[in-house]
């Protein structure tokens, strides 16, 4: 087991290195950070631009491979370099990871929990009205892309607020910096409502469908009948025996979603103006910010590999058959 894990870790490190290097090369050869300085009024002398870009390791007059070597040396020691205007990528990344975490933790957990519950209910009440309702609505929601859903939510809230005459639900940004203490906290929660809905609706629909299928498979099996035959109440048998077994596939998806959470909410972050990791990817591409692009890619690759690792561990923990083989 230990040997297997080590081998897997080594392969993952290589994959992350390749992904980040390719992203750096792609960004460094195609992006033009110089443009941000050339267009200034009054014009900046070229020598000054060169010196600035050299200091940030962004100068396109330096050969790509030399820049890459400098960058890679920094990354190995844990330094991701400078942003296009000289800020520290590390600092920016740390701040943005926290923003994404605050934004996404509740939505991800809520989406999973509600989805599993709705899916299980739907399976137990198969072909009844509630099952049909859950099925149809999850089908429709899964056909609505996040950016349409988020915009719809924003429009609805805008009209609601205007109808009421005051701001009941905030629809942009993370918090109001003028407030403090308890008010600030409540205001933050208020800002969370819309992004959380827009994030979790999709995953509720997704998990409820998986959970329904798995639950239906399990419900017909002998061990559930045995549990009821030995005198357990229906509810206990369903939750303790059926639901637990049927949770395995949803849990693996959840592990994956949890790992990719940080970079998965690009649209929600952009539309509701939160400055998290997902928004950074788009912003850094638009700002020709080579080092940030490479850093986001590095982070995303680490997250994906960590998530796939986590999902394997989780399956092994939940499913006795995997452990034996």
């Amino acid at each position, binding site marked *: 087991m230990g040997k297997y894990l080590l081998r897997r870790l080594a392969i993952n490190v290589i994959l992350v290195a390749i*992904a980040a290097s390719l992203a750096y090369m792609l960004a460094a050869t195609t992006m033009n950070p110089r443009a941000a300085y050339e267009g200034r009024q009054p014009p900046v002398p070229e020598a000054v631009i060169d010196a600035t870009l050299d200091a940030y390791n962004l100068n396109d007059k330096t050969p790509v491979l030399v820049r890459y070597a400098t960058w890679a040396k920094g990354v190995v020691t844990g330094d991701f370099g400078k942003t296009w205007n000289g800020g520290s990528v590390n600092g920016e990344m740390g701040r943005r990871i926290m923003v994404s975490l605050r934004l996404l933790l509740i939505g991800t957990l809520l989406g999973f929990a509600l989805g599993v519950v709705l899916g299980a209910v739907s399976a137990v009440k198969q072909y009844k009205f509630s099952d049909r309702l859950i099925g149809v609505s999850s089908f429709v929601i899964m*056909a609505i892309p996040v950016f349409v859903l988020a915009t719809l939510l924003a429009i609805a809230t805008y009209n609601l607020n205007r109808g009421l005459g005051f701001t009941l639900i905030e629809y942009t940004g993370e918090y109001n910096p003028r407030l403090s203490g308890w008010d600030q906290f409540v205001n933050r929660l208020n800002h969370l409502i819309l992004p959380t809905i827009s994030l979790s609706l999709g995953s509720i629909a997704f998990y409820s469908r998986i959970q329904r299928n798995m639950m239906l498979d399990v419900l017909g099996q002998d061990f559930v009948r045995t549990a009821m035959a030995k005198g357990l109440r229906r509810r206990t048998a369903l939750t303790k025996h059926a639901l637990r077994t049927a949770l395995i596939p949803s849990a693996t998806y959840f592990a994956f979603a949890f790992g990719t959470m940080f970079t998965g909410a690009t649209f929600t972050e952009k539309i509701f103006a939160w400055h998290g990791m997902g928004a950074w990817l788009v912003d850094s591409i638009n700002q020709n910010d080579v080092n940030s692009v490479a850093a986001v890619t590095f982070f995303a690759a680490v997250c994906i590999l960590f998530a796939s690792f986590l999902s394997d561990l989780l399956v092994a923990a939940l499913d006795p058959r995997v452990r034996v083989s």
Partner: protein
Amino acid sequence: MRSKVVFRRLLRNNQARYGFVALVLLVGLAYVGPFFGAYDWTDKDFLSFLSPPGGDHWWGTTSIGQDMYAVTLRGMQKSIIIGLLVALISTGLAAVVGAFAGYFGGWVDRVLMWGVDLLLVLPSFLVIAIISPRLREGTWLWFVALLAAFSWMITSRVVRSMTLSLREREYVLAAVYMGIPRWKIIFRHIVPNLSSLLIIDATLNVSGAIIGEAALSFFGFGIQPPDVSLGTLIATGSGNATGYPWLFAFPAGLLVALVLSVNLIGDGLRDALDPGSNT
């Protein structure tokens, strides 16, 4: 024989029927609809900017006086073509790579699966976002190729594992002993036996690709102006959706309807081709 049974099952399936009807209507709207509109999608009406839907401009006009009806249908044509092409390429690629890896095994398998892993780790969003706006002078076909290149990996894994079990079947072994070259066996015996999986996958890939295109175009990384797609229209529409709802409502509504109808067909196909599954 089997195709007849499947087809009958498909027709009896309500979901698939509604999906088909909706899709035919939508495709008809996209391709026949423009002939009924009074304006071409390149026309600009300088007398009405941002006018709401009405008798002259059925779906209103944009901020530069384009007829929303004509532009939206033009965008829908593009989205439909992109969806179909991406689905075909990506499912085809998944079938070929998966079947070769599974059938040949050994180093072919290892190299191909390593490539799959690498593509999964590579940030597809980033790669497409950086490359595609720089292909301005190139056609949108490059964009299709990029989208397809990043959407086949998971299916190819499934194909590979199914090929592993097909490889040992009697008819495949019989073909080997008859001296048929191995690449021919793959195309003649392995891939046809995976057809139900591939058909379902291709259908769902269509809706996936339509959403993917719209998502990238939403940030300006996909279809480039002056060409339009549902994604670019939604992007411009969502910016001022509160003041001028028709700019957002028509493209977004059609996008959702399109994806929904394709998904319904995909679901119905799965029921018809694979009665054992209850997904």
